[in-house]
């Protein structure tokens, strides 16, 4: 018989002995909580990670959206206030201009009366 064949024959699997499985399960019971199940499967871990990333991305997007909307509202309010101020200024200038015109007219009339007399 060839040496390698003799080695194969000599290294046939041997019996682990009576109760080996029971001893493994007993250690499992003492070293692992009964409620514990094997770790989450890979796809479940990836799904969880993807969900967290999606939630974070959606949150950031919503925050940016709200921030941009607030900035637009503030700009619109500022523009409205500026326009109102501009209108008020124009109105005030108009009144002043009319008053000055009245004064000028009266002065002109007074001057004409004095020179005429």
């Amino acid at each position, binding site marked *: 018989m060839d040496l390698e064949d*003799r080695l194969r024959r000599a290294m046939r699997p041997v019996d*682990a002995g009576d109760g*080996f*499985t029971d001893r*493994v*399960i007993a250690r499992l019971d003492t070293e692992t909580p009964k409620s514990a199940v094997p770790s989450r499967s890979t796809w479940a871990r990836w799904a969880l990670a993807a969900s967290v990333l999606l939630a974070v991305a959606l949150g950031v997007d919503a925050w940016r959206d709200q921030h941009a909307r607030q900035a637009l509202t503030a700009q619109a309010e500022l523009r409205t206030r500026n326009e109102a101020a501009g209108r008020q200024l124009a109105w005030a200038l108009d009144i002043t201009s009319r008053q000055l015109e009245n004064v000028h007219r009266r002065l002109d009339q007074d001057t004409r009366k004095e020179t005429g007399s």
Partner: protein
Amino acid sequence: MVLLDFQARADAPAAPDRRAPRLPAVSPVDLAAARTGDRTAFARLVRHHQGLVFSVALRICGHRADAEEVAQDAFLQLYGQLDAVADDRHLRHWLIRTVSHRAIDRLRQHERRPQGSAAPLEALSAPFVDDDPLLARALADLLATLAGPARAVLVLRFQEDLDPTDIAALLDMPVNTVKSHLRRSLEWLRTAAPELEHGS
């Protein structure tokens, strides 16, 4: 990575396997049930593979008590990682890989202890099943001189009938190192016990 490698191999189209399986495959139902925490199904998996795992551990450790503990540790580790195991073929590779590395580590721990390196020859000769006590003794002498990785190579080659490429992947060593271990071990055996080659 090796796990993935085995996964890929398991998923690949079935190539003709020159190694006849020694046991029928574990039921996929048992594997699926064990993944959910069914300990009865897991016990059936353990019973199915315990001979393989214990034999590898025993022949690398050379000591029955160490082999028992190493084999149990491998199964406990398996319980926590069943999700990573695709099918029975993958399970068998996973177990061989895990128990081999654990047994080599156990042997290294013994070698670091001052009271002695190798297990006694009586303990080492026990794992061998042969009618010829000469062969059993020659094997024991050989194994007593080998470091853990070289023992593992010999065991995986002749107990599990794995080829050097598979052994290299399982033990994380270059194929040429595996071949070198095998060549040196066989040369040593032929020199130490030439009658083995041509004996009955």
